[in-house]
């Protein structure tokens, strides 16, 4: 059964324990300076944003149909059965199409390195495979970040909104966005205030569909177009041949 993360911003106290745990898990530097950074970078996979007394966590959404995996020419990204969208650095050639394609702008690049990697939250795949929760969910003191079965989390998110409708905007972020994501979010303020793209903007359709529609035409298009080109060549070639023979005949007749 596929796993997921439910982040409830109303329960978040902005302690940034998740950031610290994430850095430790992924062997990234973490100190006060990094903690103060509010943008995700190649050394900060998750960040807790604050606006007045409201908080919002940003991390890879782990799409059900990830655009990054679909666009990668060498298939360096793939979604595991458990839910995490993981990255194989060995395959990567560094085209950065994943970064352009991601609706949540999650993949970040090691611009300063000579053999750069794409970095993003990979939902602790090793821990998840062992049946453990992700580092961030384990570290969270309030339960704002909760790890569990995806379906169960969806049900729980719905329950929370139903039981306390005044506490939440009536939307589970990630339920339908780009065809659904493994990370679900609840909040008391609109998500776009924290830079999460609106569902009206990114749609409910899985992003790979957009290119898939074109790519699906290829197997039909290639033989058809080849046939047309070959046909035109044959006809125009034949016409040239006939014209030549006719000219010869005309010359012969004229000669007689």
């Amino acid at each position, binding site marked *: 059964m596929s796993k997921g993360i439910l982040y409830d911003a109303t329960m978040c106290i902005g302690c940034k324990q998740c950031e610290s745990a994430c850095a430790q898990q992924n062997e990234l530097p973490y100190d006060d300076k990094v903690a103060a950074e509010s943008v995700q970078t190649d050394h900060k996979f998750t960040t807790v944003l604050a606006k007045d007394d409201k908080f919002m966590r940003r991390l890879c959404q782990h799409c059900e149909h990830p655009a990054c995996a679909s666009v990668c020419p060498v298939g360096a990204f793939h979604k595991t059965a458990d839910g995490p969208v993981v990255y194989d650095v060995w395959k990567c050639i560094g085209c950065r199409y994943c970064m352009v394609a991601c609706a949540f702008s999650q993949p970040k*690049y090691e611009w300063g390195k000579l053999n750069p990697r794409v970095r993003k939250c990979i939902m602790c795949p090793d821990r998840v495979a062992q049946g453990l929760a992700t580092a961030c969910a384990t570290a969270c003191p309030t339960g704002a970040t909760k790890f569990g079965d995806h379906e169960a989390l969806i049900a729980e998110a719905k329950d929370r909104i139903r039981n306390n409708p005044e506490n939440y905007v009536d939307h589970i972020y990630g339920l339908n966005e780009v065809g659904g994501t493994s990370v679900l979010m609840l909040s008391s303020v609109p998500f776009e205030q924290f830079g999460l793209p609106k569902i009206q903007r990114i749609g409910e359709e899985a992003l790979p569909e957009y290119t898939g529609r074109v790519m699906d035409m290829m197997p039909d298009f290639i033989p058809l177009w080849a046939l047309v*080109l070959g046909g035109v*060549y044959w006809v*125009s070639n034949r016409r040239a041949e006939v014209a030549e023979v006719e000219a010869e005949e005309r010359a012969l007749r004229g000669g007689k």
Partner: protein
Amino acid sequence: MTIMNIKVTFWRVLFVAIMIAGLYSTYVRYLHGLGAVSNMNDQYPWGLWIGFDCLCGVMLAAGGFCVTGAVYIFHVERLHSVCRPAILTAFLGYVLFIVGLLFDLGRPWFIWHQMIYMNFHSVMFEVGMCVMTYTTVLFLEFLPNVLERFNLAAPIRWVKKIYPVLVCLGILLSTLHQSSLGSLFLIFPEKMSPFWYTPALPFFFFLSAIACGLAMTIFESTLSARAFGRGLERSVMTEIGGALYVVLWIIALLRLQDFVHRHVFTTIFKGSYEAYFLWTELILCFVIPLTMLSFKKVRTNPHLLYLAALSTILGFVTNRLNVAITSMDRWNGSHYLPSFTETSITLMICALGFFFFNMAVRFLPIFEDEHHGAPHAEQTLELAEVQQPTLVH
């Protein structure tokens, strides 16, 4: 002025300056990484190198498949004389595209992974495979030039035998990857301005490649005629100018239809940051060349025809840069301008293109008609000496 027996001209000095700057930037690129050399960042993972070197490079090299297709598939024999220069431009264009890619890829030393880790869902994979195959096809199409130069009759016969197949394959591969370069952008509709995002992007990329292929054929023929003092076949140029006129009208009407269909037609008249870029593009792509080419006097005048072609080329280059960069400015809430070092590498690649074109024209029978039998190497050299050669024209 001459230094060590080499005549110093403006273009040569410029060439050397560009090469020095470019080589310095190459050094920075491969010693300190992409961040040090370019202004690309997490918001703009694709910059000038993808926007210009790759997207425009491939578009400007489209003359190869347009002209060979017309001559070998449709038997438009009149265009025979521009076949070789068009193939040369295309071959150089694709080789330089790959050179550009080696700068842009973060891990260029793993570029061969493309051939073993295949992701068939990826548009980029399709483009990569097509470009690789098509560069091989172009190499074979270009090969007779070299073989003739060294009077190797037997291999020329082999290549000639498979020539129609090569040309067909070239058109097929070009159709696929020229349009797929547009498909690359289909997967992030949310990020792009509605001025440039349209589900029809692949069609527009393909059509603009044809327009630019024709425009480049006029451009390079006129330039090399001027540089080498050769006579320009005016009737051929007029004919290509006419074809360009028709293609531009088709694209213009389809663009109009696309704007109206997606309900953005009225917004293009409202002043906005994107609208200025769009109008720059539309004026250069359509208004100037269509107005010019509608006069017979322009189509028959090599100089004016050259200007119309130049405007078309600049217009579609603007179009692709807009698609790749400008259209995402609003989403990112910031702007991207290439750095000096980034630009110098692009300029170096362009300068190398001119340089190799010049060298090829000088040492290979590019402007010899193959019907006249074996090429005359001596004649080519003689001509080069007579003409006060410029290193780059």
